């Protein structure tokens, strides 16, 4: 029967053999040496010295890595969330238990760290910033990495938009944009997913619900046959609020 357990120290075969009373002096090392690893992963001599001195905690060592290295280790979404302070470094390791292997340690998933909705949000964010040069943004916050305006998939007008349009000397016309019409070129211009703050998000959260950080202000276009209409609205959980017409333009 094989029993595995985490050990706070690393010992060579010689040391283990002495402790267990077994002669393992002739057993060759099975893994690559630290020097071999350092060469393979291009770890600088300075960092090798620091590592060998073993004066750093795992967190301090991780923080000493470049943004690109950190991102490669954690993955883009988890790195973004960590960078924004959504969880502490220590939370990355979780205790596990298996009836076969017993107690152990494992890496906590983003979903375990943040919950399903927040995890999905950071995965989307990291995808949007795929082309970013991470070395250059090392010192920036997540808000700096977000676009000023985020392009999102087109949407549909779920309720008809209508109102009285008045032409002096002619009279009134009831304008109707029917339900089911496509809203195209939809963009988030403030709030969640953008670097642009949504000034009154806290008012919306207070009056309707949710967290202020989840509210968004969006813009979309209705292409009428003769006019285009720029529609603005506020959105939370895919529900549109306060639909307004910003401008109408003759095509």
């Amino acid at each position, binding site marked *: 029967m094989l029993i595995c357990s985490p050990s706070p120290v690393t010992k060579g075969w010689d040391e283990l053999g002495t402790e267990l009373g077994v002669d393992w002096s002739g057993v060759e090392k099975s893994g690559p040496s630290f020097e071999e690893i350092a060469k393979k992963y291009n770890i600088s001599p300075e960092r090798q010295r620091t590592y060998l001195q073993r004066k750093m905690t795992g967190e301090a060592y991780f923080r000493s890595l470049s943004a690109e290295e950190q991102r490669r280790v954690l993955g883009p979404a988890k790195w973004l969330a960590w960078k924004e302070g959504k969880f502490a470094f220590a939370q990355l390791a979780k205790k596990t238990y298996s009836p076969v292997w017993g107690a152990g340690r494992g890496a906590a998933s983003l979903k375990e760290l943040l919950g399903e909705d927040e995890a999905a949000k950071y995965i989307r964010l990291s995808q949007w910033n795929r082309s970013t040069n991470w070395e250059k943004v090392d010192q920036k916050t997540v808000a700096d990495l977000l676009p000023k305006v985020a392009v999102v998939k087109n949407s549909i007008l779920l309720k008809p938009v209508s109102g009285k349009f008045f032409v002096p000397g002619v009279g*009134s016309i009831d304008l109707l944009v*029917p339900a089911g019409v496509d809203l195209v070129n939809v963009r988030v211009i403030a709030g969640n997913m953008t670097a642009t703050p949504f000034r009154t998000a806290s008012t919306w959260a207070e009056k309707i619900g949710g967290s202020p950080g989840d509210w968004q202000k969006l813009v979309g276009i209705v292409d009428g046959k003769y006019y285009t209409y720029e529609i603005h609205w506020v959105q939370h959980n895919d529900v549109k*609020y*306060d639909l307004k017409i910003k401008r109408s333009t003759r095509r």
Partner: protein
Amino acid sequence: MKLKYIGPSFGVESLTDGKVYICLGFEDGLLRIVDDSEEDYLYSVIPGPWDDQTVRGRWEVVEDDEDGTLTKLFEDVRISLENEARIGIKPRVVNVMEDDY
């Protein structure tokens, strides 16, 4: 130019009953109003939420320009609506996806 909205308050950041709003002008048949969001949007001369026809209020002129633009406009609106009511004709409904106006 300033207009007072009288009617049911609607939206979180749209129009509030009894509140005076800055009107930036009358353009393309609609009024450009700086509403509760502190941004300017187009509102009808018969104001209400664009996505709920059941809520409608009215405007009252508080401050007009030298030409009396808003006073004249609302006088036109009043006459037009009275004529429509008197003759019994309903205003033309324009589906913007199909018709011109």
